[in-house]
């Protein structure tokens, strides 16, 4: 009997094994490499020349571009996630109600999900073109603008444009999670509340918001991780420029690793980012536990 149960367990692991091996091979080895490079002197062409302790980290933290990118990553993540959750919460509340054409509205809201980030970035780059872009044209038609704004020529305008694009592409996923949350609230409790004389505003504040909180937390943490790692929008629109003024950590990492050819410091940046993501993951696990 024991032998049979043992064989069953072994069979279960046999089914899991291929997925485990593939994931481990493609994740663990690169992770190990990054760990090794981060404490090594590495040539431009990837030759490991010796152990240097934390010198790569010191070099990275001494770079003003890195420090600016770290700070900007906070702004980027905060602004995109904050904007996304606010917009998505509103959209989810509207989409939950029954109204004429709701199916169409849902399809349209979800549309940006299907477009690759790099394609969306290209289209917005062109739309915000200073001389021929339709954004300037539209704003002029509406009388909001007189001359032309060269949006992408200065970080002060380029970065907010990138944040806006970031929010727009994150709304569909977040709306989906929040809609899932809203649909898990049974309709009867609203009926009960209204029988007890609660106004709609009251039931929103005291029923919808608290019940939705867990889902909002999950949406925030998942978005923090996605947005923190989001590379294509900024890379395609400004490549971290002009004058390094729109770098976030991922674009800085890519530039240091592949443009400037400094694998050691780039590995150090990767590890700093992994530590941040790991902290966010722990937070996510805790939030999940709280819900369960």
């Amino acid at each position, binding site marked *: 009997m024991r032998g049979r149960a043992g064989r*069953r*367990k072994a*069979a*279960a*692991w046999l*089914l*899991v094994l*291929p*997925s*485990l091996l*593939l994931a481990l091979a*493609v*994740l663990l*080895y*690169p*992770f190990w*490499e*990054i760990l090794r*490079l981060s404490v090594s002197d590495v040539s431009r062409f*990837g030759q490991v020349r010796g152990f240097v302790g934390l010198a790569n980290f010191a070099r990275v933290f001494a770079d003003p571009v890195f420090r600016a990118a770290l700070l900007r990553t906070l702004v980027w993540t905060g602004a995109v996630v904050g904007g996304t959750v606010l917009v998505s919460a509103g959209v989810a509340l509207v989409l939950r109600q029954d109204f*004429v*054409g709701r199916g169409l509205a*849902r*399809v*349209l*809201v*979800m*549309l*940006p999900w299907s477009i*690759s980030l*790099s*394609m969306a970035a*290209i*289209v917005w780059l062109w739309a915000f073109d200073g001389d*021929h872009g*339709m954004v300037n*044209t539209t704003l*002029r038609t509406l009388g909001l603008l007189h001359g032309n704004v060269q949006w992408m020529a200065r970080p002060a305008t380029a970065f907010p444009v990138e944040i806006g694009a970031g929010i*727009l592409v994150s*709304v569909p*996923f977040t709306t*989906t*999670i929040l809609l*899932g949350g809203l*649909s898990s609230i049974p309709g009867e409790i609203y009926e009960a509340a209204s029988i007890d004389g609660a106004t709609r505003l009251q039931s929103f504040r005291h029923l919808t918001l608290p019940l939705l909180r867990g889902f909002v937390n*999950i949406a925030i943490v998942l978005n923090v991780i996605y947005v923190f790692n989001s*590379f*294509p929008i900024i890379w*395609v629109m400004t*490549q971290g420029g002009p004058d390094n003024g729109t770098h976030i950590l991922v674009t800085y*990492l*890519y530039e240091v690793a*592949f443009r400037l050819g400094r694998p050691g410091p780039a590995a150090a940046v*990767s590890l700093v980012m*992994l530590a941040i*993501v790991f902290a*966010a*993951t722990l937070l*996510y*696990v805790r939030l999940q536990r709280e819900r369960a």
Partner: protein
Amino acid sequence: MTVRRLIGRSLLSWAALSPLLLLVLFPFAVMLSTALKPIDEVLAWPPRWLPQRLAWRNFADMWTAADFGTAALNSLGISIAATLLALAVAVPAAYAVARLDLPGRDLYRQFLLVTQMLSPVLLVLGLFRMAASVPFGGGTLVDTRTGVVLIYAAFNIAFAVWMLASYFATIPRDLEEAAWIDGCTRAGAVLRIFLPLAAPAIAVTAIVTFVAAWNEFTVALTLLRDPAKLTLTLRVVNLVAGRYSVQWNQVMAATLLATLPVAVIFTLLQRYLVQGLTLGAVK
């Protein structure tokens, strides 16, 4: 509910959504408008939405300039191969997680969660070095579509197993058990009873994986060099990146053509996707 209230609510709802919907549709309008203009109209002052002359040849010009056919075939091949590989390892794993006595199930799930949190871009340097260290066909995995496929599949496993396992758990066991009683082997019951019932979930997972691979940028940018191997996303970005003068009408024709098929598939299947994702992501 009275008709008047429904109409009022509908107007309010559409009004509330309209700013977002305008922003969602704006890029599509820009794509369509520019893709159909000849270059002198693209550069004309002031810019207009509607083309005076329709320049359908933008699509033909773009097709040669970007080698669109080759790039589309590369994207298609890479995405299909990555999807099949991801499913081949994820379906059995999800079955074990949902149905079998799997010691260390929680550990495995947590491992998946961690891999889900790691985006390829964080590991990009290590991924490149890994590809460079694996001998493949006379060279290494760098600049091969196989390398890209392996990485795409690996990064989609977590999502696929999660989503499939949460669907599998909703399929009643009785049907399989009834088949055993009728003399079917366990494997036979899985093949004849379980998999057909699980087909919708597998299809949804396949589509999500396919779209993710089709749209991916960072790994392809890092690994692929040879123009004949570039994916569609890379090709289109290369029409813009680092160029002194950009043929925007061709670029928009390319983005439109690259985007539309996926947008259509996505829209048709959206309802199932949303159901599946809410199950997978939240439950």
